[in-house]
């Protein structure tokens, strides 16, 4: 179940990169100067960092450290 949820989360974020909803609009200017399409993708980077944080918390391959000892 956890694997399925994480896979869905990754796929959802990948799909969210294709933000056709802001395709043709520059307004509103976020903070008065950042076109909305650019602000969206800046937020997208933060969301990617959040997803990676979740992955490291719940799906970290800790066994690799053990298995790698020669």
């Amino acid at each position, binding site marked *: 179940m956890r694997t399925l949820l994480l896979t869905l989360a990754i796929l959802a974020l990948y799909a969210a*990169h294709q933000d056709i909803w802001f395709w043709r609009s520059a307004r509103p200017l976020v903070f008065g100067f950042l076109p909305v399409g650019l602000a969206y*993708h*800046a937020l*997208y980077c933060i969301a990617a*960092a959040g997803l*990676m944080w979740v992955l*490291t918390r719940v799906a970290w391959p*800790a066994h690799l450290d053990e298995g*790698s000892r020669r």
Partner: protein
Amino acid sequence: MIPAVIVFCYLAIVLYIGIFAFRRSGPAARGQAEDYFLAGRALGPMVFLLSLFGTNMTAFTILGSAGHAFSNGIVTFGLMASSSALVIPLTLFFVGTRMWALGKRHGFMTPVQMFRDRWECGHIGTVIFALQAAMLVPYIIIGVMGGGAALRAISGGVVPYWLGGAVVALVVMSYVFFGGMRGTAWVNTFQTVLFLSFGAVALVVIARGMGGFPAAMESLLDAPATAPLLSRERISPAFFFSYTFIPLSTIAFPHITIFCLTARRVAQFKRTVIFYPLCILAIWLPCVFLGVAANAMTGAPRIQQKLEARQQLASAPASMEADERAALRRQAAGDDVVPIMLQQYAPLWLAGILGAGIMAAVMASDSQILALSTMFTEDVFAYYGGKARFGEAVQVQTGRIFVVILTVFAYLVALRAPQSIFDLAVQYAFSGYASLSVLLLAALFWKRSTKWGALAVALWTAFAVMYTARVPGALAWFGLMPVVPMTVISAALMALVSALTRPPSAATLARYRS
């Protein structure tokens, strides 16, 4: 001249870091291949994060991204930055950690060593080595060219191109020669800190100089010619989607795969994968935004010339001569908009520090030189009996000699060949490496993959890179970029050819269970 003096001081610091790294490894460790090529697999968490990020940031990040945004608008960030912010950490998480573990367990120092062992093959590994090396060399040449051009620009022409290229090549060669992976990683860490400072400082200084960004954005929105730069209406969704395949290339670049082997513990990947998207945000957002904002600098004569050239191109008749069109394109190109903005708005001393930031970006070829040297000594010299015959110390010396030969070769080519050829080669290499990422994924996650499947992927990638480079528009199916069919066909070939051929022995597969 002040900026040039500051840049020379920066080069001296970088050189010192490399030599300090040499002293840091004791006399006993100096003759060991793992110490020279992989820093003894013992890099700490901060150096691992900052250096990995710095290794992946090239001149294009600062100069090229701003130039692309100057011509194409905010779409640059979505095309190149935010797609990388998701895909690169994911590949580090799933592929990088497993490569690290296999390297530690079996002593691998290059991806080809792993492929040879995993698929029980010899010469097919050599084919993959040759392909990886052929696609990596243009980067090294571009680095030397960028160094020459940047020093000439920063010194106002006092340092000629040939001398600037020679100085940069000599500095890079010296710290890679002496410091190996440890020196390169420390220099990259220092450079990443400069990158991060560069973006923030440049943004604040230029914003103040321009009288605030809100006014600049409003003026761009008011003009019909520049308003589309603030949205993505000129780019097709299929083209935009294609770019999400390009970051797959990162993990397949040998210098990145090899760098994954340098971490002391797998836990060091944790911080790296979390902070990587934030580092991308911190560096790319200012560069892209400044590139777009440069369109509002109509008072600056050099920017005005670029805008006029762009207008002429847009209204040019189809009958315009190719040479004339190419000259207009060069004039309209925006790779130098950030330096122009700095000259316009930053004080001299600050322009010097920021010039050092640009030099840091230009000098990213260090890890590629070291990776190629590691690959040559491990995949060719050691594999074909050199290590067994002459010993490990000679292998390390061979690696150092290779660094010198490669740098001198890159410098001589940089003096004679036009840059456009290598710009193109680098562009196609991204698609090539994305296509080669199938090798890593199959080796790590598909038991049934075989050496013949790997050979099919390598041969297809070599053919596709040459074909798309020679035939404009080739493989650009359904409005997608060639990288999509290249990668999908690679995966299909791996599946089909592997299914038809004999898998590796059960004993080998057992060693790859994780």
